[in-house]
């Protein structure tokens, strides 16, 4: 059972800030299936104190909202940060100075986190550093409570909110709109506790699934009938860099923008809900292999069994599956069984 939050009794005041990111999490939020995400949040008990893309207040009016929050005059139940924390150059945070304040966003985030009931990292940048921390990390970017896989980040590994929760990492690049909406709704309902987080601080509501679950290419996966180039219909794991069998997310059971997902779009899952996805150690769209075997095998799968089963299923591949795998449309339709019943 999830322990009820102490803040269940009133509406949830949410302050949303953006720092070292692309704004894509907010753009994804606006793709919420209900269409009217503002209404959906309102009905879930969420009030936006300020959001950089949506609120009326600009300039001095916006600053007054932020100051009231930072000084404790306005109650902040949840601080959402979208984008990484930029600590550079030289620890000053000046790669992102909050406009109109002359003060690094890093300092604002620290101050507001201390006032907030809960802190929610929106997207992989805010959670772990994400794409902003790729390469040689020119801005010294980190997540709120992680730097890649390493606990720490801006707030430190030991940070907990008043309810004992660490930063809630709604990871994803971007996160699915429902991951964000449902996490805020659960917080508003007082139905979110430490047991609802996985070991990387991600809500288990989506992190307990693998992207592989519900993949429409599953038959190709079963027979190791693989795509060789973009637009092929086959499984993307063997050659095209797909990590869906290791990546946490319900992308193929919940779907994106109506009927989509990365794999349905014909390209690899790059495991964007994971720390350090931005530096996979190989080209994103190429599967690294040793002796023809992908280096990264399906999670929880013993290597010997994978190799044995892959060899067996490859040799058992039906012609239909083999030929369609390297075509961009079905060239061999499924056979039709004659029942003989009537």
């Amino acid at each position, binding site marked *: 059972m999830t322990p009820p939050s102490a803040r269940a009794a009133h509406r949830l005041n949410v302050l949303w800030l953006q720092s070292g990111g692309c704004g894509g999490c907010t753009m994804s939020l606006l793709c919420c299936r209900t269409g009217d995400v*503002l209404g959906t949040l309102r009905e879930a008990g969420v009030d936006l104190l300020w959001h950089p893309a*949506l609120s009326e207040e600009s300039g001095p009016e916006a600053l007054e909202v932020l100051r009231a929050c930072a000084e404790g005059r306005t109650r902040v139940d949840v601080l959402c940060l979208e984008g990484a924390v930029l600590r550079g150059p030289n620890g000053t945070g000046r790669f992102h100075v909050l406009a109109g304040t002359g003060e690094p966003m890093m300092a604002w985030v620290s101050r507001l986190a201390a006032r907030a009931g809960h802190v929610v990292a929106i997207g992989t940048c805010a959670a772990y550093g994400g794409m902003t921390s790729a390469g040689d990390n020119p801005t010294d970017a980190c997540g709120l409570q992680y730097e890649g896989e390493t606990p720490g980040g801006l707030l430190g590994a030991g940070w907990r909110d008043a309810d004992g929760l660490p930063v809630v990492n709604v990871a994803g690049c971007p996160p699915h709109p429902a991951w964000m909406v449902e996490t805020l709704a659960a917080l508003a309902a007082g139905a979110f506790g430490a047991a609802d987080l996985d070991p990387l601080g991600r809500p288990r509501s989506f992190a307990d699934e693998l992207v592989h679950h519900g993949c429409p290419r599953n038959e190709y996966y079963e027979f190791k009938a693989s795509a060789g180039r973009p637009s092929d219909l086959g499984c993307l794991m063997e050659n095209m860099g797909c990590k869906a069998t290791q990546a946490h997310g319900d992308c193929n059971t919940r779907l994106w923008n109506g009927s989509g997902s990365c794999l349905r779009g014909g390209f690899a899952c790059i495991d964007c809900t994971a720390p350090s996805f931005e530096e996979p150690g190989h080209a994103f769209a190429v599967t690294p292999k040793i002796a023809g075997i992908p280096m990264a095998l399906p999670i929880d799968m013993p290597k010997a069994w994978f190799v044995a089963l892959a060899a067996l299923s490859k040799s058992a591949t039906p012609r239909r599956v083999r030929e369609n795998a390297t075509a961009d449309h079905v060239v061999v339709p499924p056979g039709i069984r004659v029942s003989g019943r009537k």
Partner: protein
Amino acid sequence: MRRITIGPFNRVEGDLEVALDIEAGVVRSAQVSSPLFRGFEQILLGKAPLDALAIVPRVCGICSVAQSAAAARALAAASGVRSPENGRLATDLVRAAENLADHLTHFYLFFMPDFARPAYARRRWHAAVEARFQATRGTAAAEALSARGQLLELMGLLAGKWPHTLALQPGGTSRSVQRQEKIQLTMALRGFRAFLERTLFGAALEEFAALDGVAALEAWREARPTGAGDARAFLEAAADLDLERFGRASDAFLSAGAYGPEEAPWLARGVFDGALRHFDEAAIREDVSHAWLVNDAPRHPAQGATRPDPDKAGAYTWCKAPRLAGRVVEVGALARQVVDGHPLARDLVARSGGNVLSRVVGRLLEVARVVPEMERWVDALAPGEPFCATDELPDEASGVGLVEAARGTLGHWLEVRGGVIHGYQIVAPTTWNFSPRDAEGRPGPLEQALVGLPSGDGEAAVLVQHVVRSFDPCMVCTVH
């Protein structure tokens, strides 16, 4: 002289600060600052060239597909691969879907809410506009977001998801379209068209697209009853507030051309400054004199570098100042329509240049023109024919990818050496529009557009917001 600093400037994509020098109640000069630096051009160095397709969409969540398309074009130029017709059509559909979604987001969520502010309480149109457009409360946002969601079903089908797809490849798209999916695409577009015709225009798209000048636009507005379409609500407020008098910049408009074959785009390529001129990409220079970047001579992006110098004296932004043959140019939907020669866009600009009114009408015009074209592209998709070609990228290569993002001309300059990215420079639309001064002291387009505005509280304070948002700035792209 008195200086006021405005920030954080919201309902723009990313972080923006504007400083205004005021004298005798009028803005005498302006400085536009992009206060966020992420360093994507450094992050890309040393990567496998095709990794750019995973990295550059994440420059910007609202222009994600445009960034993909520019990278795919630069890579295609480097490898010589040519997309089959299906891949080009699918790419155009994906790009157009983002472009139109962005125009809708701008109009309904970013721009119109300013007319609902209490400063306009005494205007005759205010009560209706407040009910419809007030930020987070008005009735329009829910309808617009639903329509946007229906439009973006194209992304689910053609690109897997939005933002941040890997579907756009140098040789086409990774997602082939099957026969029944053409019908799904058509249905999604019909639903979107129905919203536009019922709610945004209150008229057939073709009717709005056929307006051939300012007189026709005014007659169209006057002939429509109050409440007939959200475009009319804007046009009425804009006429009442005389918005065509505000926000003028250099009136030199650039477009790289959009949609269709790169060598013969559907929307023409060129520069318009009273006459249509050839756009010579080689004449672009990026000036870093007022950016927190190590001082350097103005360079063509293919020779460009991005090296932070956060303590540089005299600098006030992370944004470089791109210039075209030394000139300050404006980019965006209005520029595309003007360069393409649309009579309404040309007439608006002939009368009063680029301004708050003409920029917003430029977007509406683009919405009305692009949707029927998208319907034709869907019809032209040929299931069963290829969507993607592949080719080897040489270890030593270079390429330029120029596309039109929603907000204007976007360029990627790629250099590959030893099989990895050796140079990558991005010039984004808002880099042009919100550029700082260059070494000659010439202010960027927004810096020019703010000069001469009245200063003060109430309506004057909101006017600054209109001028800034008329460009639909995307600050995360600007500095990247």
